[in-house]
């Protein structure tokens, strides 16, 4: 690409939050008409940097130049006036408004009825939005109500919102986090279109393949510091990954199985039905032994989550038995099951795993607050909470701005997950259930959590791992069970199965047995 004029320049920008430097003396320039990636782990400062460009935060030090002129961006309003737009990770849409109402909000076209009464001119706005959506290939019905639309369409509305305001620099904050693979494909195409029509894009992500596919240049942030800017065509995913995590990454974490012991969990003829009587788990039987990772593969909705919930005691069992260390669990409630040796890392970490508005130390004691030393003679003991939390923060490298008093809502997803994993492992249970433990996390956090799972196995724990990521199943499992439509289609040692074979079972193919 030829030398081009520079649209945005960031010079020596630093932003501190209590207890953390989110952005540390970052300088970069963005050329007109390029797609520029900000790559980094969760909490590396990508979003903070983008938020400063968009005026949500103000830098403590440093300057931002737009089109060569120094810009004081104190609010999103000023960013918009400078033709900067941003699609936030969590969409900023009014759910009961139409697409058009959402797009014009804050910049409403006015008209006067009978020359006196001002009103918002929805009709003209709709026309303009239709034109924009044709021009940029963003299919959307301007009169549809947001709550009726899927995630990817809502995202298009967010993009249209920027285009409606004539934004020239478009910031996308982790835009693919909530999309399916097909949707990601079409979003990346849209972003390329935008560039081809002369827009400049800042693309925030922690997914390397996306960077390789669409971005022209890529800046890597590690713990708030800019470590490298490279042309994507001159680099490789492995190189980027190494820089991003600050060390070489072993993409395959395979470790040999140690001694496998006695049976810990035994599930027999388990049947779980949904509210309408449809079997979600259909006569499933398997066993997990000490020192073994039993991984369940399957496409989403094959009954894996229900199975895990049934073992943990969160769902009613229709028939069949669940035995832990030869004890029948049927009559035990959730707390009794925890005490008898089950740790559970749920799929939805924010609503099931944590009480988001509680502090970290309280969350870390959610399973044990009622026992000594947290609670003695019915009184809670705050020092015990803090001590345990400090220990887990240290052991599990949980990064939090204000130590154990940080509200978990303020923490990044990866650190929230590390907190849950830490809490559950600390229970020292015989059986650990991991449901989608690495979903939505960056490479560093994924690696840390996978290491932990292997460590626990090597300590002789039985592990039930449920994951939609086939790679994860293949990398970690000693034994693989494949679920399809509520049934356990195949159980076999991992060493006897190939990725392709497991993929076939996941689709329900069994005939070549």
């Amino acid at each position, binding site marked *: 690409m030829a030398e081009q004029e520079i649209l945005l320049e960031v010079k020596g920008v630093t932003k501190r939050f209590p207890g953390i430097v989110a952005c540390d003396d970052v300088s970069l320039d963005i050329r007109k008409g390029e797609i520029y990636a900000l790559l980094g782990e969760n909490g590396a400062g990508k979003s903070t940097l983008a938020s400063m460009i968009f005026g949500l935060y103000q830098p403590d030090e440093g300057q931002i130049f737009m089109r060569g002129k120094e810009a004081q961006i104190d609010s999103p309003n000023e960013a918009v006036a400078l033709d900067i737009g941003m699609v936030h990770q969590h969409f900023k849409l009014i*759910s009961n408004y139409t697409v058009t109402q959402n797009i014009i909000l804050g910049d409403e076209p006015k008209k006067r009825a009978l020359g006196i009464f001002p009103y*918002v001119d929805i009709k003209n706005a709709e026309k303009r939005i239709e034109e924009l959506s044709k021009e940029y290939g963003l299919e959307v019905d301007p009169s549809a109500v947001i709550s009726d639309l899927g995630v990817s369409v809502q995202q298009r509305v967010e993009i249209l919102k920027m285009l409606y305001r004539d934004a020239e620099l478009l910031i996308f904050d982790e835009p693919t986090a909530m999309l399916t693979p097909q949707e990601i494909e079409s979003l990346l195409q849209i972003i390329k279109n935008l560039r081809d029509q002369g827009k400049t894009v800042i693309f925030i992500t922690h997914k390397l393949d996306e960077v390789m596919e669409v971005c022209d240049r890529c800046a890597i942030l590690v713990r708030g510091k800019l470590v490298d800017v490279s042309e994507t065509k001159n680099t490789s995913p492995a190189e980027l990954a190494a820089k991003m995590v600050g060390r070489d990454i072993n993409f395959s974490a395979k470790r040999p199985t140690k001694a496998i012991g006695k049976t810990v969990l035994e599930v027999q003829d388990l049947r779980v039905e949904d509210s309408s009587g449809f079997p979600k788990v259909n006569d499933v039987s398997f066993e997990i032994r000490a020192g073994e990772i039993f991984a369940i593969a399957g496409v989403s909705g094959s009954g894996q989550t229900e199975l895990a919930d049934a073992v943990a005691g969160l769902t009613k069992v229709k028939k069949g038995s669940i035995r832990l260390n030869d004890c029948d669990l049927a009559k035990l409630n959730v707390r009794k099951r925890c005490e008898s040796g089950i740790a559970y890392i749920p799929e939805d970490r924010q609503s099931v795993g944590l009480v988001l508005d509680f502090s970290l130390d309280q969350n870390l004691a959610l399973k044990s607050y009622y026992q000594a030393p947290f609670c003695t003679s019915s009184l809670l003991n705050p020092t015990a909470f803090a001590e345990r939390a400090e220990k887990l923060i240290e052991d599990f490298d949980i990064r939090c701005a204000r130590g154990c008093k940080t509200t978990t809502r303020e923490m990044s997803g990866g650190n929230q997950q590390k907190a849950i994993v830490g809490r559950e492992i600390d229970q020292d249970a015989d059986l650990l259930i991991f449901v989608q433990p690495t979903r939505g996390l960056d490479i560093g956090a994924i690696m840390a959590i996978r290491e932990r799972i292997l460590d626990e196995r090597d300590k002789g724990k039985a592990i039930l791992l449920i994951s939609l990521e086939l790679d994860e199943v293949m990398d970690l499992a000693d034994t693989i069970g494949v679920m399809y439509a509520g049934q356990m289609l195949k159980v076999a040692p991992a060493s006897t199965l190939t990725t392709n074979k497991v993929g076939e079972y996941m689709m329900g193919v069994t005939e070549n047995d």
Partner: protein
Amino acid sequence: MSILNVNYAAILVDGLSFALPLLIIAIGGIYSERSGIVNLALEGLLGFGAFAGALFVASTVGLFATGSDLPMYLSFAFAALGGALFAVIHAVLCIKFMANQVISGVVINILSVALTGFLTSTINATFFGEASERFMLQTSPRWDIPFLMEIPIIGAAFTRVYPFMFIILIVATFFWYLLYKTKFGLRVRAAGDNPQALDAAGVNVSRVRFGAVVISGALAGIGGMSFAYSISTNFSPAIYMGYGFLAIAALIFGNWRIVPTFAACLVFGLTRSAAFQLLPVFDASAAVIDLAMTAPFVVTLLLLAFFGRSNKAPRALGELYDKSKR
């Protein structure tokens, strides 16, 4: 007295004269709540508005020609002003200081009762030289609407109507238009659904919410003044009859939307007037009149039991707007 002698015209017109002030108070509540601020202070706001309007009338006796209706019309402007000013307390507490909106509302109700009672007695004693806890108002004129009143059955609704009913209809129409057709209205409704989105669109959420709460005070003030004219022809602490809470019930049944809320107000108004006219048919004792007063509240309880689940509050209602929340 037989059922044939019941004054059906009175049921209609009394029902309307109760329903319309209730509606304007409820519209005030809708503005505040659609912007995301819980407003339990309507009762206190309507009382303080009526106090302000009545104070204006009481202090300008003699300035206007006897029999002039002008002070009455002006009193509504002052009631709106008084209500708006009192609502500023709620707005400042909830928006600037992020106080709990329910507690703020309850406190304002208590403050309003005590403050207006104290001020009324003190002002009467100091300036007018009489020991009274009320401000007298002149009797409101009542109009018969030519032609319309001759329509069979519903024509009764156009006899002996209060002028304030027209004031309310005009003001209500204006605020319906403002909420659903204009820029400001679009922003108010957005603030109560997803304030973060409104903020990201470059609109000052606090300012929008402040405006909405002040409007709720002004409208409640107009409603309170209407009750002062229609129910008692004076201002006294007896105005705190719980009608502010009835307005809240009406707007909840109306799903925080103006037209359905109007329907709910009509149900309450007609229940009340019908109870007044019909109950004495069966029993003439005074206790029955007291029972009649409870009719709208009994209807509220019944409706709550049946429709309580079907309504949808604004999504961000009562949520403090905090930019740092993820």
